[in-house]
């Protein structure tokens, strides 16, 4: 397509990306319907719940009216969805504060934890993946395979327990709960985050490392690699210049998947280290049955997951010349 103008060359991928974005939005709306149905409609009467067994029917009816529970389910759903969309998911039943305020207090903490874990684990996962792919079938690969296989199956609280025992009980290096001081120095900051990041990183490294290995090996079996080898390309150049660029699609996809693993892992890790993030907030919401807060947290996690997948798809489309033709 040498004659194509720059504009038309990008029209294909742009259309593809727009289509994927639309699809992600539709999925998000469907997800919101599922979450609202499960948590808002099925559990029965929230007014009854709040007032307890001793309440008179009049009191319940009054509270139902006040909470808007006497309106049709579809109307409540769309009002709730509108609230979520404009960033006002209602009032927390327990804290008596707007849900948006509670979440915006916690959100930065979760983003910092997720960001640091990503910075820490992605490079190591690449090392593990590349090292085992190039030594495929040999001792290094087999050892790494067993290690990562075991690491993906470890419960986070075991990793966390061992980390606390080693680093805070025996060695007295690190605090066993994560309190981030105001205006921390770099050292204080790293000390506070070292343990949760390590514990979360174990799962991400293992999972992502395995997927990177698989993506590279799939490329290594292709004829162009054989060709490059016969031409005498050095192994390092082969991996970094020939194989990795071609494996970008699957690798970015696996990154999206293992970053979404972070949410699940964070639920346990934030609780163990008493870290004030979104995941532990959601656990509190479940314990106190604070549905508006729970729904907002769930939607935030789902939206982030869909966004990650969408970004991965977009990168894959832009990186793949065949998809780029649209």
């Amino acid at each position: 397509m040498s004659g194509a103008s720059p504009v038309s060359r990008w029209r294909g991928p742009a259309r593809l990306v727009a289509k994927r974005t639309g699809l992600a939005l539709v999925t998000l709306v469907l997800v919101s319907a599922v979450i609202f149905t499960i948590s808002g409609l099925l559990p029965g009467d929230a007014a009854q719940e709040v007032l307890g067994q001793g309440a008179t029917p009049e009191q319940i009816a009054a509270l139902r009216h006040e909470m808007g529970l006497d309106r049709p389910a579809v109307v409540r759903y769309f009002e709730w969805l509108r609230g979520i969309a404009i960033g006002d998911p209602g009032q927390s039943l327990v804290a008596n504060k707007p849900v948006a305020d509670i979440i915006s207090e916690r959100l930065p903490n979760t983003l910092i934890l997720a960001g640091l874990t990503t910075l820490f684990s992605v490079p190591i996962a690449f090392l593990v993946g590349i090292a085992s792919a190039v030594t495929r079938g040999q001792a290094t690969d087999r050892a790494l395979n067993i290690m990562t296989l075991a690491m993906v199956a470890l419960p986070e609280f075991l990793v966390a327990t061992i980390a606390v025992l080693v680093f805070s009980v025996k060695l007295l290096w690190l605090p066993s709960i994560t309190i981030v001081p105001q205006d921390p120095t770099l050292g204080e900051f790293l000390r506070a985050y070292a343990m949760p990041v390590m514990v979360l990183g174990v799962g991400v490294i293992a999972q992502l490392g395995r997927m990177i290995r698989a993506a590279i090996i799939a490329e290594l079996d292709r004829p162009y690699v054989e060709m490059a080898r016969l031409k005498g390309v050095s192994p390092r150049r082969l991996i970094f210049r020939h194989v990795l660029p071609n494996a970008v699609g699957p690798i970015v996809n696996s990154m999206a998947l293992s970053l979404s693993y972070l949410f699940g892992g964070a639920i346990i890790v934030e609780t163990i280290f008493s870290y004030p993030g979104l995941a532990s907030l959601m656990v509190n919401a479940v314990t106190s049955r604070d549905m508006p807060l729970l729904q907002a947290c769930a939607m935030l996690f789902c939206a982030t997951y869909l966004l990650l997948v969408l970004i991965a798809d977009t990168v894959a489309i832009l990186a793949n010349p065949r998809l780029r033709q649209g």
Partner: protein
Amino acid sequence: MNVASIIRGARRLPLSGKIGLALVIFWIIVAVIGPFIAPYPPGSFANEEVFAGSSRQFWLGSDFLGRDVLSRLLSGARFTVGLSVVAVAIAASIGTGFALTAAVGPRWVDELLSRAMDTLISIPSKIFALVLVAAFGSSLVLLTLIIAITYVPGNFRIARSLAVGLARLDYVEVARARGEGRLHLALVEVLPNMIKPLFADIGLRFVFIVLLLSGLSFLGLGLQPPDADLGSLVRENTSGLAEGALAIIAPAAAIASLTVGVNLLIDAATQGKAH
């Protein structure tokens, strides 16, 4: 498949696979006979000292109330293994049942089921389970169902791609032309040929389920007292963390040995098939 061929297959496994198999068999036995060989009743305050270390009387020490950790672990393992086996069986039956329906049924059924499952799969599994627990609570039966439902979409996705691939093959077309009904196509022609890869998926999902169940119990949202699975044991004893109590490490390590064992076994068994 007879016993001899299973033993031959087990012998051919690499070392990691044998270790995995041994761990899996060990935990199955513990789940079945555990409560009977427990030295003390799991609820009895057998030791005056709390968070005691390992001794001849108390192999795994005592917990935060002075109860015998080994006895509690032996009865907790029954909940962890038993509940997870039931949950994975339910998840796989529903997921694979839907997958077969999608493969042999009319096109719109496939479309509908696939869209629905795609939606559910975009909700991270732990988040989904938390929402379900918040809505329905976690009695023993509900907890099992919630965990099973959480892993239906994943099983469906794998099983559907296997079943749809098989349903397009000539021998199924022949059976269809012969006038066989959809139920026959699904259960006699398609299902037997997807059993082996399906088992690998079911094994992986068992690992996820054990981790999810233990995680929920660890958060206090899973099994409720007086019942206690291995995750609950970890939760109960978190106050012993600062002294490095065996009571917190033992149940956590027990869960890990079960999940790592299953993972090693599946990996070895599926690699063996490749050559």
